């Protein structure tokens, strides 16, 4: 008996893209919680970056504004540290977001039970089903994270601009901002993949005979 080979990534990617495009509105809603969480993450990171760069100016006016805004200024190390409370809030928002993604993806698996079963009857391997779900989640995660990062970053810069004026643009260290953007996109995409992993495994383990069942 011959064995079936796996599909090249390009084809899985094409099928996943098609699936996202057709369910675009649904995908959008699923992605929205990620957009918000990542926006919050990038907002706090980039705000810290701006505050840090302003601190390095050594202006006493700015220093007092910063501390009145609630930044913990470590005068000895000459740096801004994120408060534990802030870190907890970011962590919790990301956690809530992952739970939301798992929920949405499990719903999506249930909704597509017959589709998955049919594909398995037509010769889809378990790995193909996992791949499709992970690619979909990865693409949604990437798009959502980028949107969220841009949103959060712009909001953070706009607020800094309002408080401190154009000084921020001369002092701001762009490599630090770029790093924050990269971290936010990476975390967002990984969380999306993490949330889709268990639902994808549930989908892949499904028996093809389920496709035959008639439930209406």
């Amino acid at each position, binding site marked *: 008996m011959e064995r079936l080979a796996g599909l090249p990534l390009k084809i899985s990617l094409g099928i996943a893209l098609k699936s996202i495009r057709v369910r675009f509105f649904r995908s959008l809603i699923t992605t929205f919680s990620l957009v918000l969480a990542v926006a919050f993450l990038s907002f706090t990171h980039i705000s810290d970056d701006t505050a840090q760069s302003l601190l390095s100016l050594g202006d006493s006016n700015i220093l007092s504004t910063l501390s009145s805004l609630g930044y913990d200024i470590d005068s000895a190390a000459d740096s801004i540290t994120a408060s534990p409370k802030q870190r907890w809030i970011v962590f919790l928002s990301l956690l809530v977001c992952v739970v939301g993604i798992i929920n949405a993806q499990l719903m999506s698996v249930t909704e597509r039970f017959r589709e998955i079963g049919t594909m*398995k009857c*037509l*010769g889809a391997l378990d790995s193909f089903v996992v791949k499709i779900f992970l690619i979909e989640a990865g693409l949604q995660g990437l798009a959502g994270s980028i949107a969220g990062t841009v949103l959060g970053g712009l909001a953070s810069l706009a607020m800094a601009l309002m408080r401190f004026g154009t000084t921020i643009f001369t002092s701001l260290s762009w490599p630090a901002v770029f790093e924050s953007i990269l971290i936010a996109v990476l975390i967002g995409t990984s969380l999306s993949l993490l949330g889709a992993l268990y639902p994808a495994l549930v989908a892949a383990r499904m028996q093809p005979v389920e496709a035959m069942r*008639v439930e209406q």
Partner: protein
Amino acid sequence: MKTSAAEDSYKENMTRKNIVRVTDVTKDFDLGKIVVHVLKGIDLEIETGHYISIMGPSGSGKSTLFNMIGGLDKPTSGKVFIDEVDIAQLDAYELAWLRCRKIGYIFQTFNLIPVMTALENITLPMTFAGSTGDAATEKGMELLDLVGLEGRHSHRPSELSGGQQQRVAVARALANDPSIILADEPTGNLDLNTGEDIITLLKKLSSDRRVTVISATHDYKMLNVSDKVIWIRDGKIEKIQNREELDITTGGVAKTSGGDI
């Protein structure tokens, strides 16, 4: 199934062999407190190129037997051979290959992939088999013509009628030139005329392409085209009728069909 009459009528075909062989198959479903014996020892041989109907009331084990033949379920005891290969011995990759290349499935609920067009649905099994591009597209278009859906290639399943969807499903089942087509109540969700069209189409494919068609059904219209009808009752084979015997009993069947359907 030692039927000399059937053997005589297929004598001219010396290469004839059994595409499906089922030996002493039982299937139990463990429901926790009780074990349900759904199949109680089934022996069956299905010859290449035949049109087989499996008939039986609901709960008779018809669907279970059907899934077993299609490699979708494994027996509790006994063996199922497809093309002389014991399917219990196959690993996941070999089973996928079998489902992809040897068997074409047709479902009662059509089961087209809703996000894909008719053509994409038909070429999906080819994609799984590793053939893509122009060759697959061309073959997909040929199959669409074959089932009488010229010009419908870019339609989504939601834009097609039930009968048209089932035609796409038939074309999809043929995508990798399988030896067996398994049809689970293919006319169950169709009206009388459309159902008859699908039956005629399946019969034509079976005789033109020498594809073995195995269908589980309640539909007495199926009897007229079947080479063999396997009646299942209470987990056992009640009787197997050949084409010749069927012709004699058609009158009786027609009468019951009036009462039952």
